[in-house]
């Protein structure tokens, strides 16, 4: 099996304390629980009003789905040390997100584990 697909769903885990700043639009419609997806970074759009991490995630059959993971504005994130180079295209990433409740491959960023083990954002639920 050549799939890089890995999904776990923690619907019962309420991400207490996560204050993902979506200043530009409502974050209603997204689960308070988190989900983890692994894949390859297609693109990091470090632009206003929100940044987006595009991740190609392959399932067990090899079918690739592009996830759109939304994060804060580059203004906020830039002051917290995030840069356009933080998510290099082509690198592997495991990303924790609050999934869209309607089942579309969209989520709000919570945290990420890079292939070198580096954690970005919030990973543990403590």
């Amino acid at each position, binding site marked *: 099996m050549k799939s890089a697909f890995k999904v776990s769903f923690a619907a019962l885990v309420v991400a207490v304390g996560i204050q993902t*700043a979506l*200043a*530009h*639009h*409502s*974050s*209603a*419609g997204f689960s308070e629980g988190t989900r983890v997806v692994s894949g390859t970074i*297609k*693109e990091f*759009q470090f*632009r*206003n*009003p*929100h940044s*987006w991490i*595009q991740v190609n995630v392959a399932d067990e059959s090899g079918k690739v789905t*592009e996830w*759109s993971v*939304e994060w804060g*504005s*580059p*203004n*906020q994130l*830039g*002051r917290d040390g995030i840069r356009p180079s933080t998510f290099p295209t082509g690198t592997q990433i495991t990303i924790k997100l609050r999934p*869209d409740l*309607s089942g*579309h*491959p*969209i989520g709000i960023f919570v945290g990420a584990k890079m292939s070198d083990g580096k954690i970005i954002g919030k990973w543990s639920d403590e």
Partner: protein
Amino acid sequence: MTTRSLATGVALFAGLVFAPAGSYAQNSALTPFDKLPDWSGTWAMTGGTVFDRATQTGKGGSIDPGVREHPPYNEIYEKKYAEHLKLRDADRYPDVQTNCGVPSGFPRILNLPDAYEFVVRPDVFYIIAENGGNTMRVYTDGRKLPGKEDTWGTYTGVSVGHWEGDTLVWETVGLKGDRDNDSILDRTGLVISDEARITTRMRKIDGQTLEARMTIEDPKALTKPWNVTKQFKKGKPGLFLYDYGCAENNRNPVDPATGQTHTLGSDGKLIK
């Protein structure tokens, strides 16, 4: 009209409109720079974006079902607010800002995330909100508020103010309020009318905190004055602020007909 005569006309008009009436340094009515308080640096609003947190009921933020505020609305505006809340609970109350077209307006400009700068000068006070970006001007050069005939309703209205010691006091009129359904105070659907008049008293309450106390009078929407206080904490020294091009990569357009916030993919096509 020849090019020369047109240029002459423009120059004359510009001279009439923009001719300096004397620099602010020569206007004895102005508080000089060295007597003004130091509000330099960057600032961020404390708390979430529920406009009147003092009267909030329900747990959570402005997008969470059950959360509402309790302004002294009359029956008409309470009914209007209840309708907005019902739509908000169904995730169908459109925030006009999500389509990147209009300013936040006042008083919402004092209810925004991201960073602020408050620029104090003898003749004018500027609120520069990174989010939006939004700007508001409060003239402190001694001019009077224009009469009703001379205002036509804008998002931030017109404001004139003066200094009482270290407190800036200003009055705002000429707001469009909810006249065109494109100006709200927060995402619960809180609104005021185009007859609102707001008195704001702003001062530093300690070295790290600015406070703005607003009294909103609105004979069309309120049964009595509504007092709301917002606070701002000073940011770390040396922070950079940036522009905020809302339309740069807006992947969340709102359908004005349904109030639904859509999401576009990286290719610009609709995901949901």
